[in-house]
């Protein structure tokens, strides 16, 4: 609740992830050439990778600000379970970073010459997959919250955890764009997201308690 309002008021965090996503997508044709057939092939993967990086970029703000001003200590002694607090934080991160990325993806797909059948699937796969990115990222942020230069370490820790989500998510988008069956990867993606949402907050809270003491 407060996190949402804060993220909107601070402004920066909200727009920054989106702007980063835009920049990455725009840079891709510069690096691989303007051939539309090539771009169409790689478009789903590029959009997924861009979204993932934009998510990662905004993660260090997730807990670091609360750590610095001491609110985390206070939240940990509040009558709310820390698992719930972290779930809400992950939700706030998703609403301010993940959701805008989902909405922006089809627009950026145009720039990358995404095939017509792909728009639905890229949006759907990001919609299902980005919550997992936020929840996993929240775990990474909780692991590294007290550390100096934790941001870089967090990327190193979180990236391998993102592998399955990225593979299944990009697979849905890629198969969708090529008109192939998407049920299996879609189910797996949904499973990862639901599993992460259900279980990871416990790990995040455990880790955060260790970091607070």
């Amino acid at each position, binding site marked *: 609740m*407060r996190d949402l*309002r*804060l993220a909107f008021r601070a402004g920066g965090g909200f727009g920054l992830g989106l702007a980063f996503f835009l920049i990455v997508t725009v840079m891709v044709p510069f690096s691989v050439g303007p051939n539309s057939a090539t771009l169409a092939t790689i478009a789903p993967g590029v959009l997924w990778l861009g979204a993932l990086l934009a998510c990662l970029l905004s993660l260090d703000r997730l807990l670091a600000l609360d750590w610095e*001003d001491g609110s985390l200590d*206070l939240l940990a*002694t509040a009558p*709310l379970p820390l698992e719930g607090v972290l779930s809400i934080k992950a939700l706030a991160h998703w609403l301010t970073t993940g959701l805008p990325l989902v909405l922006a993806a089809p627009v950026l797909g145009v720039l990358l010459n995404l095939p017509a059948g792909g728009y639905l699937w890229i949006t759907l796969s990001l919609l299902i997959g980005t919550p997992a990115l936020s929840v996993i990222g929240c775990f990474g942020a909780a692991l590294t919250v007290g550390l100096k230069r934790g941001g870089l370490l967090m990327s190193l820790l979180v990236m391998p955890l993102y592998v399955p989500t990225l593979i299944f998510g990009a697979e849905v988008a890629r198969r969708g764009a090529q008109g192939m069956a998407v049920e299996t990867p879609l189910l797996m993606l949904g499973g990862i997201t639901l599993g992460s949402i259900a279980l990871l907050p416990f790990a995040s809270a455990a880790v955060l308690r260790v970091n607070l*003491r």
Partner: protein
Amino acid sequence: MIEVRDLGVSRGAVPVLEAVGFCLAAGEALVLRGPNGIGKTTLLRTLAGLQPPLRGEIIGDREQIAYAAHADGLKLTLSVEENLWFWARVFGSEDIAPVLSAFNLVGLRTRPAGSLSAGQKRRLSLARLMVTGRRIWILDEPTVSLDTASVQLFASAVVAHLSAGGAAIMATHIDLGIDGRLLDLAPFKARLPALDFDDGGFL
């Protein structure tokens, strides 16, 4: 209300205090004294449940403890009122008006916390304690950056809290004029652990 028996606490895996014991009844205040680095903050954090004790036990209702740290824990982009409302909702309180007036914050209620002076922020962060509605206050250097008038304001808030059946444990160096017991932590400084390297530890 809260009783501490044979408590040992550690900071960064090094024991700092041991055999701390006291008992606090409703309406009482306990003031911790001791030189810097003796472990006042560590003890308070342990009491608040933020870190596990090395040994000993803390008997009392954890759910009745409200903790105020060195840091103010304020969101600078939110207004004074919003900051208080956030914590009021977290702790299930209904009203923040009496708290605002008790800490003389009524005139500042719509100001963003970021525009307050250090002392005003401190007042706001102490006001947070009142909205928690909890009976045991744990205060770490509560009077830092407060001017004389604000210290008086704070002292009377504590007195009111005590006379309403609350209790307070605080680490502070100035005399608040509160009728509280003093606890000097220096005698509880942890002794050097023995060097026998045989009991499963590393020494």
